[in-house]
């Protein structure tokens, strides 16, 4: 059955490869895209190197990171039964960010390309573990949120401290830029490092899709439908930590995707928190790729950070949300 919602989702599927081509065609230098594509992976020409070693990994990373953030947001909103939840709420992003900042702080980040992302993923898991332990046995969603807010506040304080005592202006600038999020200068290393974590995280979240569906009735009803115990929320949380932690690790903190994207696509999947997972992954990938095309085509002295672009998309979205709520539509 192809109704309007499914048609929009199908259009998004078709738009993704087109946007990918658009991203490959975008950049500071003009290249012969068709020629470089036909030359293939092993070609030595500068166009081919730009395409295969710079633009393609960056575009694929945008897809991967966008998908991870979108799906993580959908899972988080489903688990907390709250449309305003986002992955950052449980300290996943700030855990990853703090680990990255400490590395940048001591200037160790560039010793090996994989060191920063790996430690950032560790930071994300550590933050989620703290939230889980702090919330305690049989924690309700609201207690998890409270624990997340507490851990988040603590991590933000540590980040402020790191910024305050930054050893040099250079380190401070690096930290700030990293916090804004960026896909610039990322290559196959980062992509291949994040990929397994995102895939495993997505699989964990996907396994919990029926739990999220049952949870739309409330925790007691979900338990009576066979989704009780700690197994399911733990799987979802670990999935979010792996996918979003890896995304933050390679691209910095890119805000609003995890919050806005599930909102946007929820009506397209008839509010089903299960189907919302992959729909949000798709829409997140598309949105971040489009935002990166904007960044690539932006001409200015300074690189425009993609985190700033997504924030500019996210803020007006909330204005629109409030206006439509005032008109009596569903929030």
């Amino acid at each position, binding site marked *: 059955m192809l109704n309007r919602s499914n048609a929009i989702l199908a259009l998004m599927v078709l738009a993704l490869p087109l946007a990918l081509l658009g991203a490959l065609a975008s950049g500071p230098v003009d290249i012969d895209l068709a020629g470089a594509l036909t030359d293939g992976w092993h070609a030595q020409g500068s166009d081919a190197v730009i395409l295969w070693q710079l633009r393609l990994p960056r575009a694929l990373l945008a897809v991967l990171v966008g998908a991870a953030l979108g799906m993580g947001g959908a899972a988080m909103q489903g688990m907390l039964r709250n449309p305003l939840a986002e992955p950052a709420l449980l300290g996943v992003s700030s855990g990853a960010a703090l680990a990255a900042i400490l590395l940048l702080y001591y200037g160790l980040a560039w010793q090996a390309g994989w060191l920063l992302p790996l430690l950032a993923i560790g930071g994300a898991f550590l933050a989620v573990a703290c939230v889980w332990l702090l919330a305690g046995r049989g924690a309700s969603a609201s207690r998890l949120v409270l624990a997340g807010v507490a851990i988040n506040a603590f991590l933000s304080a540590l980040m402020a401290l790191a910024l305050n005592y930054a050893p040099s202006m250079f380190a401070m600038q690096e930290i700030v830029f990293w916090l804004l999020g960026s896909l610039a200068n990322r290559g196959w290393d980062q992509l291949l490092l994040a990929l397994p974590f995102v895939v495993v995280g997505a699989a964990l979240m996907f396994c919990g899709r029926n739990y999220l569906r049952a949870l739309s*009735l409330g925790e007691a*009803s979900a*338990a*009576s439908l066979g989704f009780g115990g700690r197994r399911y929320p733990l799987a979802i949380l670990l999935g979010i930590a792996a996918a979003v932690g890896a995304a933050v690790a390679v691209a910095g903190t890119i805000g609003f995707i995890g919050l806005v994207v599930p909102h946007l696509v929820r009506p397209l999947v008839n*509010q*089903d*928190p299960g189907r919302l997972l992959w729909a949000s992954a798709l829409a997140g990938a598309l949105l971040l790729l489009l935002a990166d095309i904007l960044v690539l085509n932006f001409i200015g002295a300074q690189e425009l950070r993609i985190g700033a672009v997504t924030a500019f998309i996210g803020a007006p979205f909330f204005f629109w949300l409030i206006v439509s709520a005032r008109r009596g539509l569903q929030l």
Partner: protein
Amino acid sequence: MSRGALPVSVHQLAVDRHRQRVLENLSCRFQPGELTAVVGPNGAGKSSLLQVLAGVLAPAAGRVEIDGNDAAKIPAGERAQLCAYLPQAETPAWSLAARDLVALGLLPWGKPADRDNRVHRALAQVDAVEFADRPVTRLSGGELRRVQLARLLVGEAPVLIADEPTAALDIRHQLQLMQNFRQQADSGRTVVLALHDLALAARYCDRILLLEGGRLRATGTPEEVLTPDLIGEVYGVSCEFRWRDGVADFVPLDLL
């Protein structure tokens, strides 16, 4: 395990909530084909008993048996196919269409092929077909309750447990609902309801379980349990029961 008639029993049950004992030393049996009302004043432990039966709450001591098997040893998914449960207050988190909310009741069975038919049948049972496609956030309290009841019924589980199912319903739908539960019991299901309305309990139920302060105060047929003396003692209210052709007329009179 057989999917037919399933007796449920609890043995020496104790339940803690927020580190407080809310049910103590409770033993009773719920038979297939019987409609049992759990009654008692606020805080008597009705909801806790129902949650333990449904597997939502773990007992602090004692056990629940379903068809003679220790319920704690039945896998959660299988137990969900045996017992359907509707809590007292269930607020949907998302604005699902009514039919999609009802379909959630089939989650323990995965994705059955005849899902749409079963959902439609359940909606018809509670007189809710007309708003099958409406988002649940746009339903009135009573309409939402009926949709939730359809969610309870859609799996056709052998054991049905509902907490205050008649609250928020108008008198027509209260009667319709109780008749529906009566039919469910007559077709061999084990039905347990927590009820505040003693007249409905007296009229439709085979057995009454009267709880007071976390303990079983009395159990038996409505005629045996719903006596002015006992109700006066437990609720602190003077009342009258007039029995006419098996239909009880319950009139609360005054505070004692």
